[in-house]
C-alpha cells in the first residue's frame, strides 16, 4: 500500500428501491459509479486491478439504512464535498451520499446495529411475543444448524404499538440478522406479518459510541 493514499469513509443512505440491492451488487454499483466520475480513486494492485471499495457492515437484503458506510482510498487530496457531489450525480436515486469524512473508528470495533422498526401485525400477539422469556431460533453455523436463544441479545426500546427501536449484535465475531427475530414472531403468531419496515439508523462500537 502506498502511504500517500488517503482513506476516506463515505456515509450514505440506501432506501426505497435500493433496499433490494444485495451487498455484493452494492459493491459493483459503487465501483461503476466511481468510474463514471473523475474521482482520483486507488485501485487494488496486482494482476487484475480493480477499484477498491470496502463495505464496513453489509446490510441485509430488504432493510433500509440511513447511516451506512463504505471505505475508499484516494490517490490525491480533493475536497470531500466534491466527492459527495460527484458521486450523487451518478449514483442511483435511492442511494445518496450524506457525507464524506476521514475514518475515525476501525470496522473491527463495531459491536451492534440500531434499527428503527415499523411492524403491522396483530399487536396483542406481538406484545405477548415480546414478553416471552426466551426466543429460540435455528441458526446456521459452520458446524451445522444449532438452536440459539436470541432473547438475551435482543434489546427493544421506545416501544409504541408497532413502532420501536431494536438493537442487535453485528460485530465481526457475533452477529444476528434482525429477520431472525421477526421470523420467530411469524412462527409464534402462526400468520404472515402484514408489513415490516426495518431501517438501520446507527452502528455502535464496543465503547458504546457511534461508528464513524
Amino acid at each position, binding site marked *: 500500500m502506498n502511504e500517500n493514499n488517503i482513506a476516506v469513509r463515505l456515509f450514505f443512505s440506501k432506501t426505497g428501491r435500493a433496499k433490494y440491492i444485495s451487498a455484493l*451488487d452494492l459493491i459493483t454499483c459503487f465501483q*461503476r459509479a466511481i468510474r463514471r466520475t473523475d474521482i482520483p480513486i486507488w485501485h487494488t494492485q496486482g494482476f487484475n486491478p480493480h477499484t477498491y471499495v470496502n463495505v464496513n457492515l453489509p446490510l441485509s437484503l430488504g432493510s433500509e439504512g440511513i447511516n451506512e458506510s463504505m471505505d475508499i482510498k484516494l490517490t490525491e487530496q480533493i475536497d470531500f464535498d466534491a466527492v459527495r457531489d460527484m458521486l450523487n450525480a*451518478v449514483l*442511483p436515486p*435511492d442511494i445518496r451520499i450524506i457525507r464524506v469524512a476521514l475514518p475515525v473508528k476501525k470496522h473491527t470495533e463495531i459491536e451492534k446495529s440500531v434499527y428503527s422498526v415499523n411492524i403491522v401485525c396483530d399487536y396483542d400477539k406481538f406484545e405477548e411475543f415480546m414478553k416471552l422469556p426466551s426466543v429460540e431460533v435455528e441458526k446456521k453455523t459452520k458446524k451445522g444448524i444449532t438452536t440459539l436463544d436470541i432473547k438475551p441479545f435482543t434489546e427493544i426500546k421506545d416501544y409504541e404499538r408497532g413502532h420501536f427501536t431494536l438493537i442487535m449484535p453485528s460485530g465481526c465475531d457475533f452477529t444476528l440478522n434482525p429477520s431472525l427475530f421477526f421470523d420467530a414472531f411469524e412462527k409464534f403468531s402462526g400468520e404472515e406479518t402484514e408489513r415490516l419496515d426495518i431501517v438501520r439508523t446507527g452502528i455502535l462500537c464496543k465503547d458504546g459510541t457511534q461508528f464513524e
Partner: protein
Amino acid sequence: MLKEKLDKILLKVQKPSRYIGGEVNAVVKDKSKVDIRFAFCFPDTYDIGMSHLGIKILYSLKNSIPNYWCERVFMPLPDMEEQMRKNDIPLYGLESLDPIKDFEFIGFTLQYELCYTNILSMLDLAGVPVYSKDRKDLFPIVMGGGPCVCNAEPIADFFDLFVLGEGEEVNLKMMQLAEKFKKNGGTKQEYLEQAAQIEGIYVPSLYDISYNEDGTVKAITPKNGAPAKVKKQIIDDFDKVYTPDSFVVPYTQIVHDRSVVEVLRGCIRGCRFCQAGFIYRPFREKSKETIVNQVKSLTETTGYDEVSLSSLSTSDYSDIEGLLNDITEYTDKKGVNLSLPSLRIDKFSDEVVKKIKSVRRSGLTFAPEAGSQRLRDVINKNITEEAIFKSCKIAFEGGYSSVKLYFMLGLPTETLDDIKAIKELADKIIDLYYNTEGRSKKAISISISLSTFIPKPFTPFEYEPQATEEQINERQKYLLDIIGSKGRRRIDVSWSHYDTTILEAVLARGDRKLSAVIYEAWKNGCKLDGWNEYFKPEIWDAAFEKFGIDKAFYANRKREYDEIAPWEHMDMLFDRSFLVRENIKAHEEKTTANCREKCAGCGINKCLGRACFKYE
C-alpha cells in the same frame, strides 16, 4: 404505483432487484407531462432482456421525446409470477411501477420463436385479453417488432400491429398517430386502418387468409386499403442511426454485463441457412469516428469496465485494423476491456493479433457449421480448413489449449460422409496442437456443439424440409460411434434437444392456424419454452393433436418454389426469385461470392437506389 404491494413479496423471490427498477440511467418522467406511455416488453427474463442491444436503442429513442415515456417490462420467473398472482399484482413497468394495462402501447420485441407463450403469459399477467379481437378499446395497442415479424403469422391473432424491419423511425410515427387519436378521439379500427398506411406497419387483421385443401395458403387478401405488401424499413445512412449515449446499468449480474456498440448492420456473406444474413440486408457500417465516440460516451455514462463490438460479422468491417487501433488507444488508457465476440483472427496482421490478445476473450471458437468442404459449399459458409488451422496455430502458440466448434446437423444434402468429416476436422486440430511449438503443456480439449438445422423464412433454405428426429438421431449416433469412448476424452460432444428444435421449426414457418395451438399450449401451462427446465413437450403435443395439426406439415415438408408462403405479403426488399436461384445453386454445390467481392443480384440495391458497395 405498486411499490407497497411489491414490498410484501419481493423478499420471497430470487434476486428481487430485477423486479424493482431504480437502476442508474433508468428514465423516470413526470406522469402529468406525458401523453403516450409505452411498455417495452421483452418476453424473456430480465437477465436475458437487459443484455439485448435493440431494446436499449429503442428505449432511449422513445424516451428522447419529452411527452413519451417508455418503460421496461420483462417476463417474471415462476416464483415471482406466483407471488404476483397471489397478491393481485398486475404486470407493471419497472420505471413507474404502474400497471401496464393503462399504457397506450404494450410492445414486444420478438427475437426468437420459443418466446411466444411468454407473450401470452405477460399479456394475461398484465390483465389484458390475449386475443386482439377481444381488446375493443383503442388503448392499449399491442404491437410487436424484431426479426420474427418476417413471419409473425403464428402469433398474428394476438397482436394489433407489427413493425417490419428497423423500428427507429416507424415506432415514432406509430406513436405520433396514437397521440393524434388520443387528442381527437377515434376507434381502434380507425387507428389500425390509418396505421396500416404507414410504411413498415403490418396490421394482421386487415388481411384475409384462405387455404387450399392440402393446408397450404391459397391467397392472402388485404382489405380496407391495407397494402398488398408490407415493406421492411431500413435506415440507409447508418452513421446517422439513433444510438443511445447511455444504458440502464443493472444491479444484478446479467448475461452480458458490458456496454455494446453496434458497428455494422447486415452481412456480406450470404450463408444460405442464416436468416439474419438476409433479413438485415443491406450491409451498412458506421464510420470509425462514430464508433469510437460511442465507445467513449457509453463507457463514461455506464462505468462498465468492458465494451463489446456487436454485429453479425465484425471481421467484415472495412477498416477493422484501423478501427481496433483507434478503439484500443482509448480503452487501454482507460483500463477498459474490449471484447470481440466471433472475430476471425486469421485475417489480421501479427501486430493486431497481439493487441487483441491483450484483451479478454471468451476462448477460441469456430462455426464451420458443416464438416466437409462440399457441404460448406452447399450452405455457402465461407470458412476453409486452412483458415481454421491458421487461427488455431496462432492461438495455440499463444497458450490456448481448448477449441470450441459449432456444427449443424440435418443440413440439406447432408450424408454420413459429411458427419465423418466433423470428426476428421477435430482430429486434424488435435494433430496440429501436438505439432505446435511453444504450445501449452495441457492436454487439448475440443468441444463439438451440434445444433439441428432449422429452415427459416427468407432464406434460400425456406423450401427445405427439416431433418426428422430419426435422421438426426442416426447422424448423432454415427458421430459418437466413430469418435468412440476413448476419443470422447479429448472431444466433448453436446447437442440440442429435438423437441425444442422441431417446435421452433414449426413456429418459424407456421401460419395463422397455429395461433390456436399456441393459445392452447399456454393455457395448459407452457411458458419459458426456451428453458429446458420449463419446457413441456407433452402439453405442446396434446395441443397440436387437439386441433388436428401435424407438426411435420410445417417442419419436415419440402415446399415447391411456387407455393404461396404464409409470409408472402412481407417485402424484405430483395427478390424472392433470388432465394430460388440460391436454392438451386446450393443443390448444385456452387458457392456465391460475398457482396463486397461481387453483387449477387438480390435486388435490394434497386430499393436503395444505389449500389451496396463501390465496386472497381
